[in-house]
């Protein structure tokens, strides 16, 4: 488990991170969301030791980590970059070796990873000759080639074509499934909602919410329900304990506690055919707007 505790960072008088505290569980895909300038990249750079924090600790399973531990992290910076003129396989192998992997293992992992990322045909090409999508895949390979114990990715989906998004998604899921803590930041809340077990929300340098996604979403607002029936649901307005939020012919979105909701469902079945009835958990974007405000 990756544990970030009390991390603070200033640039001159400006405090960019204020007592940032959250955890990334083993095997948990954790989404790190926040607006531009909220402090995501700074936090990740401190995690990787690329930047020094003014205060606070980063530890794994209770042990504070040093530079040697960080070599076993996998990192994909927001600012993508590789040596343009260096051949793909050689470059990925080189980066693996910088992370302390021996020559033979580095070469074997590179071959394996390039095959998984559908890049084998380009192994000998200079990176600059590849399409942008393929360059992004090489970047993913660079983050994974040393079989990291912790994976940190800054905006891994930005600038990706849909094919590459799927590739990266697959790789992230696989990596998390093998028990590695995975932290990634994203602007795309729908992607985070679809993918993440846990969510950390940061705004103005401080953590506003952190925890399992479903808990955060459930806690974000009163229980709401969606009802779709044949005909009209105008009768719903007169039901006690019901607050109708949206209403459109046979569709209604309303707030009610569980008992009232069950009563509404029974009445709906008496009135006619029920097309669908479902609890509606707030979207992550709603949670985000709520906690960031």
């Amino acid at each position, binding site marked *: 488990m990756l544990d970030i505790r009390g991390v603070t960072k200033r640039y001159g008088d400006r405090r960019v991170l204020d007592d940032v505290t959250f955890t990334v569980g083993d095997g948990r895909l954790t989404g790190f969301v926040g607006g531009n300038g909220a402090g995501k990249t700074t936090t990740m*750079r401190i995690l990787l030791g690329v930047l020094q924090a003014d205060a606070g600790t980063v530890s794994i399973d209770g042990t504070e980590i040093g530079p040697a531990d960080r070599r076993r*992290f996998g990192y994909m*910076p927001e600012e993508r*970059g590789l*040596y343009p003129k*260096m051949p793909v396989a050689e470059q990925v192998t080189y980066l693996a070796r910088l992370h302390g992997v021996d020559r033979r293992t580095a070469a074997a992992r590179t071959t394996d990873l390039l095959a998984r990322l559908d890049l084998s045909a380009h192994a000998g090409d200079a990176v600059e000759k590849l399409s942008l999508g393929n360059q992004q895949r090489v970047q993913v390979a660079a*983050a994974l080639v040393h079989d990291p114990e912790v994976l940190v990715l800054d905006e891994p989906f930005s600038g990706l074509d849909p094919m590459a998004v799927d590739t990266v998604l697959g790789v992230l899921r696989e990596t998390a499934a093998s028990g590695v803590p995975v932290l990634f930041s994203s602007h795309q809340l729908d992607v985070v909602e679809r993918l993440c077990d846990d969510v950390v929300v940061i705004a103005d340098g401080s953590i506003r919410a952190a925890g399992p996604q479903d808990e955060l979403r459930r806690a974000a607002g009163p229980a709401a329900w969606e009802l779709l029936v044949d005909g009209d649901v105008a009768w719903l307005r007169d039901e006690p304990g019901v607050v109708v939020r949206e209403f459109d012919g046979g569709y209604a979105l309303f707030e009610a506690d569980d008992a009232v909701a069950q009563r509404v469902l029974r009445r709906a079945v008496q009135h006619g055919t029920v097309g669908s009835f479902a609890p509606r958990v707030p979207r992550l974007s709603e949670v985000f707007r709520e906690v960031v405000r």
Partner: protein
Amino acid sequence: MNGSFARSVQLVAVREVQARVRSRAFVVSALILIGMVVAAIVVGGIVGKATADDTTPVAVVDGVSLPSTDGLDVTTAQTAAAAERLVERGDVDAAVLPSDDALGYRVVGLDDAPAEVVAALSVSPDVELLDPDALPGGLVYLVALAFGVVYFASAVTFGQSIAQSVVEEKSTRVVEILMAAIPARALLAGKVLGNSVMAFAQIVAVAVAAAVTLAVTGQDNVYSMLGPSMLWFVGFFAVGFVLIASLFAAAAVLVSRQEDVGSVTTPVMMLVMIPYVLIIVAYDSPTILGAMSYVPFSAPIGMPMRVFLGTAEWWEPILSLAVIAASVVVVVLVGARVYENALLRTGSRVKLTEALRG
């Protein structure tokens, strides 16, 4: 940790060497430099030899005995008339005819006094040189020029290439991945080491090419005069280049775009250029050479030059080398600090004071 630091440095250095060897610009410029040195030696040898072998054709009437025929290409003529005809036809520069005076011969020219023939036939007093080992001025100048050009060309080539590779890592953002894997100091050390090795290899190649060319063209005497100073030059360059490379790296890390490399490395370029100009302008000034031989940036050419001239005591190159080594330590420490602090700051140019403060 120390083992992994050394391994990181080694990995970075090897990559630098590979990148350099693969670059066509590097290979071509190295070949041009070696070619220039070889050509200069070959041309110098041919010109020297031509001057030494130069003889004046002269017709001598049969029966006239000359005190010496050094420098003369003698054609024997049967009669005085035949000899004069050779002069008129331009086959020879002068004719030596029998005469009744004390010498027993006289010289006939066409339209002006044939000075070389007269000189060859004249009696010269003995000349004693008080400083018989003094080097010919032309050779001293050529050697100064050679040291200056080779030092300047190599330092600038490899200084620029390390500057460009520092900025390349910043401009392509690959630096953030590198910094997540290894300390910035290891990256800097590897880059300086890799480029220094390549620069050193080029200098050695030039020195070997020069030695081989001197031997092949039969100028062994020049080689024996030049040998020790060439060895010192190679040694001084090895240490001195680390200094220059660190400065180029620390200067280049302040900017993020290749277009800005030129402006930010100009002061470092001056440090390389000034010794180059000085050695050419003031190669015969003992005072300036003396000063140059101890200033870290000019010592790599100043001290070998003094060794060549024989004006340096045996301990002087060693002392000077120690001065350079000490300044290397200082510059590398300061440079590493600038490098660490400015490496992640992309965008506008980082002020040097900010980079030093961190």
